[in-house]
């Protein structure tokens, strides 16, 4: 236990250091200036200056998702705090461990509508796991300890620490002690699943003839990928991942069904619909998965493992609800099942059925061999080219829309934490700043941001941050000159009326724009140029490259679930559907 005189600002930075924080993303301003001065005088914690607070929180989030360690952002009061809100909501919906420290006006000014005052605790309340308003400088170390504990344990989530300026004042010092442990009587996250429930789950697993493992982001958050693979291998159960869970089970494994849900594969959605047992792990039966919950997988018993008891039976009744960590519960299942005789032959008809589904309407993973008659590049081809050139090993971040779904469908993720996207909130603008967080954590790895001309413009100012810190991110822009997913819905549900989804020739020259920020821009508009350009892009190890690819604007993402129905109601192409 160290004991020295520090100011609140110094105590805050030292506490972050004690939590193992090496870098934080932020943007200074009046209420945070004492903290920034404390940062200036030390070298334990590096500060990365972003260009917008939304970028700071997404970068911290990308860092957290790729490393499993908490990400930290520092913003000032008022507009700094409100700009951080989208980042907080993004982290909240995807349950990622992010700590946001916001400066606040002096405590005596709170409530007086003073300059740059916003009730950050109030504004952020519904989108944080917890928040703290510092009441006195001496409380800072304990609050930091609690904040990191809450953010990283149980179901992870963002935590806000709002710090009034007077509590970081360098003229007020106190004895700094960092608590070695904390005890919170009101916070005891579930760990080990109830053995009785585990036993019931084992029985159902042994009986199943048409099982599916459906795993989500919780498996990645809990570093339970190895345990998931063990369970799948032991039981031979076909496995599907949610958008948030991609990479938890290897994308190239023959047992993998691909992603499920709204734009899931035909075989994954059919398997869910016809299953007699669904083993859900770290997934929450979100509406993008279940389609109409009343018609969801009616013939299946459901085992639901989740660290958050409130997720169990929230949407879909769980026959065997297990509250506990994915890692612990999967380990318990594997160890129990290892003692049992598992008759894998009884799954054969089911596995054959799935193979048939895949052959019938599975995704075509050889799109690069297609030469479209209209001479346009298909967006799927860009993803496949990226996969080929990065040998499937890159970190891929994405924004939100068609490009996100194409990336999820066509890039095989073999490792957890390799695929980073805003699944729950669907935040356009997430891709580039989150890629910065990943690239800071893994400076030698290839980090590609798959984006579209719509999303990239929502946080494009971070190109400047990338230049300042020499981040060699590869921006793969699927440029269809339209808000593709909006347009797709307008095509399918609004009679092709493209209300405000195109730009009337107002798009910038993205290559020139990137070059003006000091980066490299490469334009591709012919299929023959795609693979050489991708090769050149990925090979530039020390440069940010903006690869701007004109893709077919009329391409839609398929399969697509038909709303208000069961999971077997899918559009398979513009003129083919399953019903």
């Amino acid at each position: 236990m160290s004991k020295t005189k520090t100011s609140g600002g110094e105590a805050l930075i030292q506490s972050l250091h004690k939590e193992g924080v090496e870098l934080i993303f932020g943007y200074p301003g009046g209420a945070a200036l004492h903290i920034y001065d404390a940062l200036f005088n030390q070298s334990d914690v590096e500060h990365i200056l972003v260009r917008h607070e939304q970028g700071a929180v997404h970068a911290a989030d990308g860092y957290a998702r790729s490393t499993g360690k908490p990400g930290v952002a520092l913003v000032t009061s008022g507009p700094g705090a409100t700009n951080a809100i989208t980042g907080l909501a993004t982290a909240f919906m995807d349950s990622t461990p992010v700590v946001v420290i916001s400066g606040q006006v002096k405590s005596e000014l709170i409530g007086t509508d003073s300059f740059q005052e916003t009730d950050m605790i109030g504004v952020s309340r519904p989108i944080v796991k917890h928040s703290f308003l510092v009441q006195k400088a001496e409380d800072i170390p304990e609050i930091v300890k609690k904040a990191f504990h809450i953010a990283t344990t149980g179901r992870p989530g963002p935590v806000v620490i709002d710090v009034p300026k007077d509590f970081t004042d360098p003229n007020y010092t106190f004895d700094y002690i960092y608590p070695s442990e904390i005890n919170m009587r009101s916070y005891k996250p579930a760990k080990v699943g109830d053995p009785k429930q585990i036993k019931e789950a084992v029985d159902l697993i042994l009986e199943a003839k048409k099982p599916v493992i459906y795993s989500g982001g919780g498996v990645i958050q809990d570093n339970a990928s190895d345990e998931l693979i063990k369970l799948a291998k032991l039981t031979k159960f076909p496995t599907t991942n949610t958008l948030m869970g991609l990479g938890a089970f290897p994308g190239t494994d023959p047992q993998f069904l691909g992603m499920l849900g709204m734009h899931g594969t035909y075989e994954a959605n059919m398997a869910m619909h016809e299953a007699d047992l669904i083993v859900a792990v770290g997934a929450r039966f979100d509406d993008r998965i279940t389609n109409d919950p009343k018609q969801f997988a009616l013939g299946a018993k459901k085992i639901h493992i989740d660290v958050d008891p409130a997720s169990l039976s929230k949407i879909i009744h769980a026959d065997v609800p297990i509250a506990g960590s994915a890692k612990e519960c999967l380990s318990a299942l594997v160890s129990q099942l290892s003692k049992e005789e598992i008759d894998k032959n009884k799954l054969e008809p089911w596995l054959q059925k799935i193979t048939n589904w895949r052959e019938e309407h599975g995704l075509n993973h050889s799109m690069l061999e297609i030469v479209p008659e209209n001479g346009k590049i298909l967006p799927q081809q860009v993803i496949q080219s990226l996969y080929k050139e990065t040998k499937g090993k890159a970190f891929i971040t994405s924004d939100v829309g068609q490009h996100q779904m194409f990336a999820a469908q066509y890039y095989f993720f073999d490792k957890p934490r390799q695929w980073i996207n805003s699944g729950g909130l669907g935040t356009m603008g997430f891709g580039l700043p989150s890629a910065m967080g990943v690239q800071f954590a893994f400076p030698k790895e290839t980090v590609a941001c798959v984006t579209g001309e719509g999303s990239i413009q929502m946080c494009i100012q971070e190109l400047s941050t990338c230049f300042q810190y020499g981040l060699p991110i590869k921006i793969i822009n699927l440029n269809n000159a339209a808000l593709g997913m909006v347009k797709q819905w307008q095509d399918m549900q609004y009679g092709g009326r493209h209300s405000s989804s195109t730009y009337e020739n107002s798009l910038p020259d993205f290559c020139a724009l990137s070059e003006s920020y000091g980066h490299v821009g490469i334009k591709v508009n012919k299929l023959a140029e795609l693979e050489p350009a991708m090769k050149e892009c990925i090979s530039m190890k020390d440069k940010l490259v903006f690869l701007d690819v004109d893709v077919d604007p009329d391409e839609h993402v398929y399969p697509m679930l038909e709303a208000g129905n069961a999971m077997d109601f899918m559009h398979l192409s513009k003129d083919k559907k399953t019903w």
Partner: protein
Amino acid sequence: MKRVIALLMENQPGALSRVVGLFSQRGYNIETLIVAPTSDPTLSRLTMTTNGDEKVVQQITKQLDKLIDVVAVSDLGESEFIERELMLVKLNKNCITSDEIENLEGKVVFEDKEIINLQFVGEPDKLDKLVENLNTKEPLEIVRSGSSGISSNSKTLTI
């Protein structure tokens, strides 16, 4: 179906707003809400009544339990419990007789030449009926506290 939920929470600034916010955020109703510090000054006890079926109430209690400031939650309807509410009524003195007050089991807590204040304690249903009755006497003001609840068996809500 009406449900009565009791909870203990940290007596911290902002704790109540998290509880109340949860209800609007997730689309649950609060019919009544009553809160006060307990004999342990670090804790507050809150009783709220809400409407919902079994599934909704289960979700409400789980979501409440998830709040970091909430220490313990109980759906009092899971076992036997007592529910009581306080009501204060202000009337013109000439609108009610002392016999009527006695019949209604009211207690006079203030009176002067013109005004009389009455206190009633009882189950909410009983107070509903009293309100109907009192409305015929042109009351100047009626204020109800909302329900407070406690289980009537050995089960306790403690940390």
